[in-house]
């Protein structure tokens, strides 16, 4: 579903965010991307939804090479990729329902369909009862679930989460992670960038470790600091 071939990213200010990254993430897989701040986790995610282009190498998502993709095709790529951020990125003047419906309206979905679909995804994250509330009336955990519902609204094949638990208390963080795992079990590829050790350690999933832009380890069923069942180097 997601392939990185010898990908490097150097920003205009000469900061080297990624170096020679090779990755393969299959359909329905659940993986953590871990590493200290500035290791390149966010850049890695941004390359997947084509917010950035690699300086070298190629990124292939769902069989399409993002480097040669036309500008006009980008929106359609993004409809297949849900993204959740640490700061939720909800619109403060729209209520829960409107925030989620927004993602569907802009794709041209009929209003009755939109209403149905919004109800479905709010059910998934357990927030249907709060659909008339505004973001500032919700807890951090609830806001992040609204953001997750919005990411899921278009039934994406890929879900990316950039430090999704960064602003949440441990309990809300764990609850959100359970939602993400459930979503991956339904066939969506889920990639979570985080430096929350406890969460990574609990879930024992694939862990891709970045340091200074390089993949230093990539192990199945691992913990934050590496683990018992090595997968055998990067790749």
């Amino acid at each position, binding site marked *: 579903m997601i392939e990185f071939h010898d990908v490097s990213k150097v920003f205009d200010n000469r900061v080297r965010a990624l170096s020679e990254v090779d990755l393969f993430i299959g359909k329905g897989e659940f993986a953590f991307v871990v590493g200290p701040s500035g290791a390149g986790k966010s850049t890695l995610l941004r390359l997947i939804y084509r917010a950035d282009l690699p300086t070298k190498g190629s990124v292939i998502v769902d069989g399409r090479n993002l480097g040669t993709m036309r500008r*006009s095709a980008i929106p359609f790529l*993004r409809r297949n990729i849900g993204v959740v951020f640490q700061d939720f*990125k909800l619109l403060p003047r729209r209520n829960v329902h409107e925030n989620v419906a*927004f993602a569907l309206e802009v794709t041209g979905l009929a209003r009755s369909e939109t209403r149905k679909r919004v109800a479905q995804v709010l059910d998934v994250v357990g927030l249907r009862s709060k659909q008339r509330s505004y973001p500032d009336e919700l807890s951090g955990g609830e806001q992040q679930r609204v953001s997750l519902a919005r990411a899921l609204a278009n039934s994406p094949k890929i879900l990316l989460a950039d430090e999704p638990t960064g602003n949440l208390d441990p309990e809300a963080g764990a609850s959100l992670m359970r939602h993400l795992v459930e979503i991956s079990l339904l066939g969506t590829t889920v990639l979570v960038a985080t430096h929350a050790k406890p969460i990574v350690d609990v879930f024992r999933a694939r862990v891709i470790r970045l340091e200074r832009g390089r993949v230093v380890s990539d192990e199945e069923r691992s913990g934050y600091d590496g683990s018992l069942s090595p997968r055998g180097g990067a790749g």
Partner: protein
Amino acid sequence: MWLIGYCLREAGKGMRRNGFLSIATAATAGIAMLVLAIFLLGAANLAHLADYVERQLQVSLFLADGVTAEQRDELASSVSQIEGVGEVVFVSKEQALERLREAFGENAALLDGIEDFNPLRDALEVGIKDGTSVAAVVEAVKDDPCVSEVSYGKELVARLLSVTRLLRIGILALAGLLGVATLFLIQNSIRLSVFARREEIAIMRLVGATDAVIRWPFIFEGLILASAGAALAAVTVTAAYAWAARFAALNLVFLPVLTVRATMGWVGPAVIVTGATTGAVGALLALRRWLRD
């Protein structure tokens, strides 16, 4: 079809959410269009006035003694073929004296007895439709032996022509400048509106909205706000001009002023169309830098 409905709804929401800014944008466009309307009215009336004065122009060709009726008619017909020349009328010296008598009015008795040695001359009065043709007429008859003297408001014609030309160019240039100024004002207003909603735009891009879906609500917004402002300006100017035209008709009888119907019939639509266009173009310009990936 979906896009139009969606864009109208979003433009409406956008205007409601940024109420104050929307009113400011409409007011800006309205004021600019008001000034434009006033300039257009001024220009139309000046052109009308210049036209009016030009139409009063006349060249008198005084005929030499002994010119026969045939020679006279031939001259008249050749002059009347010059472009921009209106009617050519023969005024005999007797008729000229009669006119003089009328002009003297109560003092006409002073002219009694003058008939026998009438000092006036036979003349062809050449009506001028276009001020620029005066020179052509003068040139054509300059060497004609039948014409003893040519009389026309030489200086007046020259001055009038240069003044009206200057005025027309000046007004055209001013109207152009105003149009550009309006474009910048609206562009800035829409840019503020876009800036106020930059997070919304970022999220739209994130969830896969196409450029059209992002762009059109703002263009509709610019279009609607600027048209509303322009319409208000057109109504205001129409009312004000109706009053001014009536005032002029009653109190400044000598001044030829165009009627409301003759002017606002085109000034109104022109102002609204200009407003709408600048609104849409301004919005488009404002959006350019926000629509890169």
